[in-house]
């Protein structure tokens, strides 16, 4: 087990900069999720840690040892790929044992380690099968078994659940969580799925265009998104973002739709400025004397929740998510309120959170 430290890590493909300087210190035993939209550089970053991509700039250290110049096999890591990457002509046992055989681990110990991993992953019955004779979920477990038997300093996962169907994905997510609790191995886990990130992570690193937008626990990232990008990426449906003007008195936010909301905390620096106001759909509540008035465009009843697509008087859209069954119909006008703690302020130009 070990720490993983990234120090100003950069990666360029020719003139294109895929990773623009990322710093992160992953603690021993921590489960760090790299989260971001497709193409933001998550895989590239993970593959640099694995040693599958060269490092253009900066330093990567695993267990305190700088690994920039080391081959993947010498970095003491194990990786689980999206497409499983199992050897098609080898049995499940041989797939798990292969890395150990190459390292010259004694036969008896290989047997013992594979048997133990197979027991943890409930693969005991399948040890003689070929990957082609397994289901997707079983193949992914074999891929994890191959990582576990190596007893590495760190696990690297690259979207390991993306090829599974929704039900299996949920199930495997829970299994990975249990595995992590049981083994406590430092893990870097790449995904574009916020639910995976929120449920698995000790900390999430939200990436966008090769930059770390925010690093924090799942709740920090949800409750205090550091930028408009994070605010929009985490949460479902995404956060509403409205234009707003901080009145000169520093107490009220004036919205173009005519409504006025109280500023959560007085911030003298903002007085008289234009800002972006973020409100999560689930934090908007129906209230007879609410400040916001919307016309209901569309109602989606999901059973446990209802999503209302509303329209403010000036035409701006506002999403509202309410628990339970619908309480309104299309065409109706609703009065809504957003309590001050639910308001997030962002700088319109930089997109960064305006600290309160």
């Amino acid at each position, binding site marked *: 087990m070990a720490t993983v430290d990234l120090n100003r890590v950069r990666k360029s493909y020719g003139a294109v900069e895929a990773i623009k300087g990322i710093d992160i210190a992953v603690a021993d035993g921590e489960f760090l999720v790299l989260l971001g939209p497709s193409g933001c550089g998550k895989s590239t970053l993970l593959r640099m840690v694995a040693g599958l991509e060269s490092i253009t700039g900066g330093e990567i250290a695993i267990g305190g040892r700088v690994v920039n110049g080391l081959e*993947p096999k010498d970095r003491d890591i194990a990786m689980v*790929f999206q497409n499983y990457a199992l050897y098609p002509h080898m049995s499940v046992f041989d797939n798990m044992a292969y890395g150990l055989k*190459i390292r010259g681990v004694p036969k008896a110990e290989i047997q013992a380690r594979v048997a133990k991993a197979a027991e943890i992953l409930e693969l005991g019955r399948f040890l003689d099968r070929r990957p082609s004779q397994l289901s997707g979920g079983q193949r992914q477990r074999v891929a994890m078994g191959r990582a576990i038997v190596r007893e590495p300093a760190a696990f690297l996962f690259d979207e390991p659940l993306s090829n599974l169907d929704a039900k299996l994905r949920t199930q495997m997510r829970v299994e990975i969580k249990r595995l992590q609790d049981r083994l406590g191995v430092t893990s870097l886990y790449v995904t574009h799925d916020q639910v995976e990130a929120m449920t698995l992570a000790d900390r999430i690193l939200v990436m966008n265009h090769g930059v770390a937008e925010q690093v924090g626990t799942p709740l920090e990232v949800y409750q205090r998104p550091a930028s408009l990008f994070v605010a929009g990426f985490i949460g479902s449906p995404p956060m509403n973002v409205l234009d707003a003007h901080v009145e000169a008195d520093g107490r009220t936010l004036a919205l173009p739709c005519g409504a006025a909301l109280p500023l959560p905390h007085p911030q003298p620096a903002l007085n008289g400025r234009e800002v972006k106001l973020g409100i999560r759909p689930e934090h908007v509540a129906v209230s007879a004397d609410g400040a916001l008035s919307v016309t209901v465009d569309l109602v989606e009843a999901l059973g446990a929740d209802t999503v209302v697509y509303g329209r403010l008087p000036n035409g701006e859209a506002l999403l509202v998510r309410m628990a339970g069954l619908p309480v309104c119909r299309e065409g109706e006008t609703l009065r809504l309120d957003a309590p001050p703690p639910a308001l997030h302020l962002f700088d319109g130009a930089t997109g960064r959170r305006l600290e309160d």
Partner: protein
Amino acid sequence: MRTDESAFGRRLMDAVPHVVLILGVLIFAFPIYITLIGSTWDAGTIARGNLPLTPGGEMLDNYARAWNETRGDRIIHTPVRIMMMNSLIMALVIALGKIAISIISAYAVAFFRFPLRMVFFWMIFITLMLPVEVRIIPTYEVVANMGLIDTYAGLTIPLIASATATLLFRQFFLTIPDELVEAAKIDGAGALRFFVDVVLPLSRTNIAALFVILFIYGWNQYLWPLLVTNSGDMETVVIGITKMIGNGEAATDWDLIMATTVLAMLPPVAVVVLMQRWFVKGLVDSEK
């Protein structure tokens, strides 16, 4: 009435392809049948030009003489067992040599990045356009100067040295997912281990298919063996048959030629039959 008609029509639709196929088989099989029958009669019967369509009684005698002896009734020939051995060595060395060279060069081109990689690939590719027949005079010169006339090396190396199968293996290697290569890297497999432990086993069916094609290609070589072999001891069976024909009908031991021809067909047939089982196995396993 209508149903009868359509049933008849359907039967006709079944029958027509069968008749066509059976006719085709007969047309292809008939010369082979004649050869088989011819190898069981004496030379005189064949030479008279009205060969019976039923087996004669000279079979054992014909095959034994062709297999072992140097003297026929009218001509002197190299015993077939020597020629068959030469052909077998040539065909095996060419098939295995070509497969070995192709798979190794395809591995290099497909999995490694090195300077001038594509230049090398195209150089290999261009050898496809230069089969032995095209470069035969310079090649003969080189082989003669190296003293390789009448040697197995001279017989086989120039035929190996065109990487027919490189392209085929490269295309196959490109279908091996990058992630598999990377998983092997992380498992600690170097280039050689990955080749032996992963690439070779995955290429099994391709190798088997190529072996069949290249074995028959090697076995049927004519022009090049004709040039580089002078002594009877180095003669291949395909050359031997044409030499046995001699100068005219009268001076030819047709019974021995028929027997030799039948013997010369056996190894390619055996290779096809044996390897066919491999293909089927590869197809049924469907590991990819």
